[in-house]
Structure formats: C-alpha cells, structure tokens
C-alpha cells in the first residue's frame, strides 16, 4: 500500500512527463478497479477492458484531478462510469460472476462456496440494478458508504437507503430460497 505522500509524488511525476510512474498507480489499484468493473459487468473480459479503459481515461484527465479527494476515489468513479457505459453499449447475455468463483475444485468447501454463490446470485436477481450495484460495491473489501456514494455519484443518504433496502430484500430472498432448497432435499 502506498502512502498519500507517495501517491501525490507519483502523480506529480506523471504530470511532469514521467509516464512510467503511472505503472505503479495502475499496479496499486488494478484489483479494486477490476473488481468494481466486474461487479457491474459480470463478465471478466469486458471488466478487464473497461478497467483498462478507465485507467487510460484517468491518465488523460489526470491534470483535472484537483486532489481534494483521494486519487483512488476519483479513479474508482471513472472506472464505475466507464463500466456503466460499457454495460449500456454491450448488452449481450452476461456470463455469471459465480461461474468464476466455482473454479475446478470439487472438495466440500468449494461446493459449499459454490452453493452460497449460486444462492446469493439468485437472490440478487430480485433487486433493482441500482440497489444491486450499491450493495455489491459496498461489500468490496474496505469500501465505506461515503466512498460508494462518491463513486456512484449519489447522495450519502440515498446510498444508505439503497444498501439498507437491498440487505433487507436479500435477507428475505435468501430465507425463501434456502427454505425451498431444504424442501427439495
């Protein structure tokens, strides 16, 4: 993890023409950026392309970054908007995110994890798109409500309501799905 000072120094270097300094910023935030894009697009190749495109866009607009917010928050907003525009452009059938989580393992814990993923994915289908995005981004490690609100360009209270409502709905749906599963056993 790089400190705020290091981050600012890297940004200064990039703005000063030292393009290779940007590689450290990309390396630092690539996983978060990719995960955000993946949560929105549910498709790894598209998410990878959107995340790359977001980083390229951030590089081109770096001069306009006013440093009032953290670079990461600014960058994630760009990645979020880029992924949303990809979603609008490429409306092909989505590959399930859960497919990737299953992997090739066949041991009990992997199967259990696959079941969990399948259940949560099924429950997620019942949410509207904005609520689904809000709760998925909120549960990406370390993101606060403020950060997600900033990323999605929404008011903090709106976002709080979305996450609250989504969790309620998910809890109800999961309970229903698990009951149905229990009946079929």
């Amino acid at each position: 993890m790089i400190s705020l000072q290091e981050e600012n120094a890297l940004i200064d270097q990039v703005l000063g023409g030292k393009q290779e300094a940007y590689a450290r910023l990309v390396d630092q935030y690539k996983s978060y950026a990719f995960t955000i894009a993946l949560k929105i697009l549910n498709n790894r190749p598209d998410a990878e392309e959107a995340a790359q495109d977001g980083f390229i866009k951030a590089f081109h607009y770096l001069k306009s970054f006013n440093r009032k917010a953290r670079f990461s928050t600014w960058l994630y907003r760009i990645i979020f908007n880029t992924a949303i525009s990809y979603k609008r452009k490429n409306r092909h059938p989505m590959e399930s995110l859960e497919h990737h989580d299953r992997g090739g393992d066949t041991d009990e814990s992997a199967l259990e994890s696959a079941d969990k993923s399948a259940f949560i994915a099924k429950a997620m289908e019942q949410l509207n798109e904005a609520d689904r995005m809000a709760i998925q981004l909120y549960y990406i490690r370390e993101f606060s409500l403020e950060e997600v609100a900033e990323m999605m360009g929404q008011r903090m209270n709106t976002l709080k309501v979305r996450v609250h409502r989504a969790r309620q709905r998910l809890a109800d749906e999961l309970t229903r799905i698990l009951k149905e599963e229990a009946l079929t056993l």
Partner: protein
Amino acid sequence: MEKMTNDQEESLQDFLDGKLEGASLQQLKRELEGSPALQQRLEELRRVHTFLGSKTLQSPSPRFVERVMQNLSKAPLSYYASPKNGLMLLVGVMIASGMLVMVISAGTFDQITGLITFDEIVPVKKYVTPSIPALHINGKLLMKVLIGINLVLAFLVLDRTILRPLFQRRAGSHSL
C-alpha cells in the same frame, strides 16, 4: 411472527456493520434477548453479511499493467460513441443529405437567388456608415454547401464511432 420495525432493522444492520455502540447497543441486546423473531432476523441479515462479505478482490490478468501502459497514448475506447448510435447518426445524416439532393434535383432552389440589402433596416441605416454592401444569395449553392457539411459530418461519425473503435479493438485483441 412479530413484525420488525424499520428502526429495529436499521439497528440490526448497524450492529452487523459494527457501527452500533453505547446505549443503542445495550438496548438492541436487551431487545434481542426478549425476542426470538428479532434473533431470527439477525441471523437472516447475518447470512447476507457473511455471503457477500466473504467475496474477495478479484485479480485481472497478469499483463494488465503492461497493457494499460502500452495503450496510454491511445484515446480511451469509451471516448467514442457506441457503434449502434454512430450507425443511427450516420443513417440520419445520409438521409438528410439525400433529401437535400432530391430537393435540389427537383429545381426547388433554382429560383431562389437575389440580393439582400441591409440599407432598409433602420438601425443599420442610422448607426452604420458607410452602408453595408448587399449580400448575393444563391439558394442552390447554399444547399450544396449544406450537403458538403453533411458529408464531412458523416465521415467524422463513421470514423469516430465505427472505424476507429473497430480498429482499436482489433489492435487490442492482437496484443492480448
């Protein structure tokens, strides 16, 4: 089963997020002890928390950084309008050009020629000396200029929304 209030739901969620403390936390604990329904709801919400919270960060492909750095000089792909929108815009521009050509061929603008003089306009006459020269208008020529502008616009739309993104995507897929 007793119905949860919104406040109780909120308290349970805050509790799971670790945001509940002091008197509010103590109150929730008391309520939980006396309410099996509340305990059950906590478990339901905890399940969501556990299911979603166990998701870890996903890693992109190993050459991600390299590819971003290789493409830094290119304009971002999403900078361009979508090919579908571009195609619709292109069709619109071509239809407009076609209509202009048809109207010109029909001879509608053949008779629209003449001089526009500004001397008759009172404020111009009053404040501008010497007088502004008269403007020669040729309707047919004006329409031809409009067709020319439309064709340039069509070329730009084709380039920005269809050709460039297509070639950039191809270049991108070859570098994978």
